[in-house]
């Protein structure tokens, strides 16, 4: 194939890819079409990858294929095997790989020193920094959620140190762009500094805030890919990277809002693990209930709203709970699931976990849809959720979670809380809901209590 012909084929293929990516993302934003969306996007990736093999004057094909097979095989196997509860850290890991790839492209361009234009060099440097930060930062996020790093490293003056590293990174970048000192050692220093920055930026952030950070790094990787696309003159990379950059930024904002946190707050303070215990004093007492009585209450209800939390997923109880709900539905009870935006470890994570158990998505309602319905519900069944149903968020200005949108489970006629023990929630705040007159505590882990409730309903 001639060079002109090959170029036309490649450009045409990239155009098709851009179309398939955008249509794929569009379809992924509705549950009805979501499944076909990823297939569309996948087809786009195949088209672009195959077309790229026709790129003129390329070498190192054996090396290329080996890298693809190794990287692809490892990712495919790990992606097929990972548990649904571990999905957030897996996304972080794949995202970090993308950032690392963008940084690698920048590194090759900069070591070669072939950037003819100032803007080309600047984009290569900025994309390289962002990619490297996203790479090392995502690896830290993965390690934290996976439990490989248990505590958050914090010391006084930490932000000053981070700022100094960031400044040094920028200086190295400017030196390279301005061609003042573009030797290999400066390029090396640039990438080492950017990698260190990603680590030190992410280490102090608490586990609860990690989803927002992962989403942010996802957007950053998109941006890095777009910048390297400019450097290579590759339209597919520019379009796909920019679309992900802007979509990812919006998604990050939506997540931060759902968690009642601003992005600045997430990045520069340490709420995630060190929140002060609430100041409010809770009055009343915890009133336990037996599974048998709770089962009867559920069986004779007209409307039940289930509020699942991450505790349910950890206990792998979603299958049992769905079995219970199916029994109730067969008895004519109206059952729905109410999902708080941050139930699970990431907005939407709980929906995935429920879907895994076979719960149809039209029985699942989010906060805005369901909150008005609690008043008409006979029973709100809380399983492993805590802070997201704490009415203190509406009433107590002194509470760290004040202002966070919550599910109004306290408005239901009866509340049953399945809980392992009497400890406070993730944020360490007492839950006023548990002390209400219409609340009953069912102590035990979600799995065995689910079985007990099933037995109780069957015996009615």
């Amino acid at each position, binding site marked *: 194939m001639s060079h002109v012909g090959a170029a036309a084929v490649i450009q045409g293929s990239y155009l098709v890819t851009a179309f398939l990516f955008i249509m794929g993302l569009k379809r992924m934003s509705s549950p009805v079409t979501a499944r076909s969306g*990823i297939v*569309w996007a996948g087809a786009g990736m195949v088209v672009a990858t195959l077309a790229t093999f026709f790129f003129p004057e390329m070498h*190192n094909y054996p090396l290329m294929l080996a890298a693809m097979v190794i*990287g*692809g095989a490892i990712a495919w196997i790990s992606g*097929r095997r990972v548990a649904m509860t571990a999905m957030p850290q897996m996304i972080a890991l794949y995202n970090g*790989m993308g950032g690392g790839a963008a940084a690698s492209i920048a590194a090759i361009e900069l070591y070669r020193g072939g950037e003819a234009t100032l803007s080309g060099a600047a984009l290569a440097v900025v994309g390289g920094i962002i990619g490297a930060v996203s790479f090392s930062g995502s690896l830290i996020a993965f390690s934290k959620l996976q439990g490989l790093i248990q505590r958050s490293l914090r010391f006084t003056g930490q932000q000053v140190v981070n700022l100094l590293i960031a400044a040094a990174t920028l200086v190295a970048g400017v030196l390279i762009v301005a061609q003042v000192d573009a030797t290999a050692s400066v390029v090396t220093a640039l990438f080492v500094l950017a990698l260190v920055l990603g680590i030190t930026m992410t280490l102090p952030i608490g586990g609860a805030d990690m989803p927002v950070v992962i989403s942010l790094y996802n957007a950053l990787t998109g941006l890095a890919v777009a910048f390297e696309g400019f450097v290579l003159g*590759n339209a597919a990379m520019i379009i796909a990277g920019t679309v992900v950059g802007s979509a990812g930024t919006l998604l990050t904002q939506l997540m931060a809002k759902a968690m009642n946190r601003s992005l600045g707050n997430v990045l520069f303070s340490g709420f995630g693990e060190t929140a002060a215990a609430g100041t409010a004093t809770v009055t009343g007492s915890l009133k336990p209930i037996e599974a048998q009585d709770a089962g009867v209450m559920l069986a004779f209800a007209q409307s039940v709203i289930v509020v699942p939390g991450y505790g349910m997923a950890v206990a792998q109880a979603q299958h049992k709970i769905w079995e219970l709900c199916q029994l109730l539905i067969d008895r004519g009870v109206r059952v729905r699931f109410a999902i708080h935006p941050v139930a699970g470890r*990431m907005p939407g994570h709980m929906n995935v976990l429920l879907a895994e158990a076979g719960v149809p998505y039209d029985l699942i309602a989010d906060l805005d849809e369901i909150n008005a319905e609690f008043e008409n519900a006979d029973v709100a069944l809380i399983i492993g959720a805590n802070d997201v149903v704490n009415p203190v968020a509406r009433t107590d200005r002194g509470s760290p979670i004040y202002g966070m949108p919550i599910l109004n489970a306290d408005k239901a006629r009866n509340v049953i809380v399945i809980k392992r023990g009497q400890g406070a929630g993730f944020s360490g705040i007492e839950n006023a809901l548990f002390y209400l007159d219409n609340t009953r505590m069912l102590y035990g882990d979600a799995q065995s209590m689910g079985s007990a409730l099933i037995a109780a309903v069957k015996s009615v």
Partner: protein
Amino acid sequence: MTGIIALYIFMLAAFTGYEVIGRVPVILHTPLMSGSNFVHGIVLVGAMVALGAASTPLEKAIGFVGVLLAAGNAVGGYAVTERMLQMFKSSKAAAASKGGDAPKAGEPPKGGDAPSKGSH
């Protein structure tokens, strides 16, 4: 591609990304983030071009790592997104058939594994 055209592409793509995601329900946030994570796996084509042009051992080594990471991003992103999305079913679909609800497009689930198929 001239600079100004590239800037136009950048601007329009940014708006597109924002609009496409704009009204997405919370229930799809995790799969969507995973899906957009897959889309930036397009960095694979850039890594391929960079490795294809590499001449020194250092460049080749970095290019190799770049392609490996990019392939991991694309393939892994596809694998987990597809797994999550295939679990989403409506009551009707769940009642009508257990598992008979095939995806619309004729792409096999392994479609994201293109890199290893491109050996020609």
